[in-house]
């Protein structure tokens, strides 16, 4: 685990660096294949950039509204670069909304745009896994298996590395379909969603930090199962006779 990289007086947060690297590499890959799907790489960059900026601003505002007293006492905190002063839910909701508004204004086709963004999500998934490797978060359950790693006081499943392997496998599976355009629009995105949810459903069982509900059921597995079901229902709908042709983009 390497949570910080000490460069002289600078302590660089490795997990954040991994996420930025994942985003940059994902965007570069997405830009290359966007034109094949009839989209401009610039539009894709702008869409992601707007989502990111509005998402960050929204996350900060959401946090400020939750802890108004703290910011009244220390108003400069509003402009702090500290990532701890963000509310992920507000950021996600506002970032998504801004992307929808931008897409609508630029008349970006919904499903092909999601397909074009899939490489960003797939590479970001690897970035998240690497961030977990660096920070030691998302750690595994205790195990006596020979490949267990010593972490946080005991021998554990190397859950962060399972996550990394799953991310690489999903990118490997999807790299050919990413370049193919003969499938109905939306297939690539839904296939990624199904694979990502399926891997989470499987791998969550090896985690030691799961939030538990209803006497031991892992909440993340339940959410992953629901996402998997929705993605498979979407794929089923796309494969209906007549549906595919109407979404053809290639």
């Amino acid at each position, binding site marked *: 685990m390497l*949570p*910080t990289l*000490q460069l002289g*007086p600078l*302590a660089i*947060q490795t997990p954040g660096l991994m996420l930025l690297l994942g985003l940059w590499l994902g965007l570069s890959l997405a830009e290359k294949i966007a034109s094949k799907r009839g989209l401009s790489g610039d539009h894709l960059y702008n869409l992601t950039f707007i989502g990111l900026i509005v998402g960050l601003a929204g996350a900060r505002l959401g*946090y400020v509204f*939750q*802890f108004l*007293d*703290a*910011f009244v*006492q*220390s108003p*400069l*905190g*509003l402009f*702090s670069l*500290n990532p*701890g*002063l963000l509310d992920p839910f507000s950021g996600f909701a506002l970032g998504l909304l801004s992307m929808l508004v931008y897409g609508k204004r630029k008349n970006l086709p919904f499903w092909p745009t999601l397909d074009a963004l899939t490489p960003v999500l797939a590479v970001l998934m690897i970035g998240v896994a690497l961030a977990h490797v660096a920070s*030691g*978060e998302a*750690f595994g*359950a*205790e195990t006596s298996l020979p490949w267990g790693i010593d972490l*946080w*006081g*005991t021998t554990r499943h190397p859950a962060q590395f399972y996550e990394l392997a799953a991310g690489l496998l999903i990118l490997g599976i999807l790299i050919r379909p990413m370049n193919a355009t003969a499938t109905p629009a939306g297939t690539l995105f839904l296939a990624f969603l199904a694979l990502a949810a*399926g891997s989470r*459903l*499987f791998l*969550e*069982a090896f*985690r*030691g*930090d*799961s*939030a*538990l509900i209803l*006497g*031991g*059921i*892992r909440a993340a*597995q*339940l959410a992953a*199962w629901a996402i*998997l*079901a929705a993605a*498979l*229902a979407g*794929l*089923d709908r796309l*494969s*209906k*006779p007549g549906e595919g042709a109407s979404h053809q983009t290639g």
Partner: protein
Amino acid sequence: MKFMQQSRARIFYGLILILGLAWLWYSSNPGAATGGKIPAPQAGFLAPNFTLQTLDGQPIELSDRRGKVVLVNIWASWCPPCRAEMPAIERTWQDFRDQGFIVLAVNSTAQDQLPTVQAFVAQNSLTFPIPLDESGEVTRLYRVASLPTSFFIGRDGVIREVVIGGPMAEALLRSRVEQLLKETP
């Protein structure tokens, strides 16, 4: 032909979902979250206990503070971000100490000089306890790779968040303490 393919795909999807549900049920385990039971310097784990002498010569033990919200801040006087965040920590402590907030600003004395520490504390009128880690044992126990490193600990003794580096924004300090104080013991 396409209808047949779709039927096969549906059976496959249905099978995946049934297997998924079976796996979810099979892997459910009330004892799965091991975090809060083991001491480790990571969010979700019990804060490792330590006993140190403070700057004014008093012995102080972390486990005695169970039931309070604790900020363990590991710092050194030569570290600019550590120095920069101390006044904000002092103000936050002054505002919340009556509600059960405690600061243990562990000086990593093994890599510092006591007279400089004393001068810095006096100059900034810091009034919270400053335990001295003269052997460097606590710095190692908490796996501190970068100074300052701060650990926000809940009333149950479990670390809620680790902040590596600094200076922490005062709003971050205040909001975290406010949030932890609201938690039921």
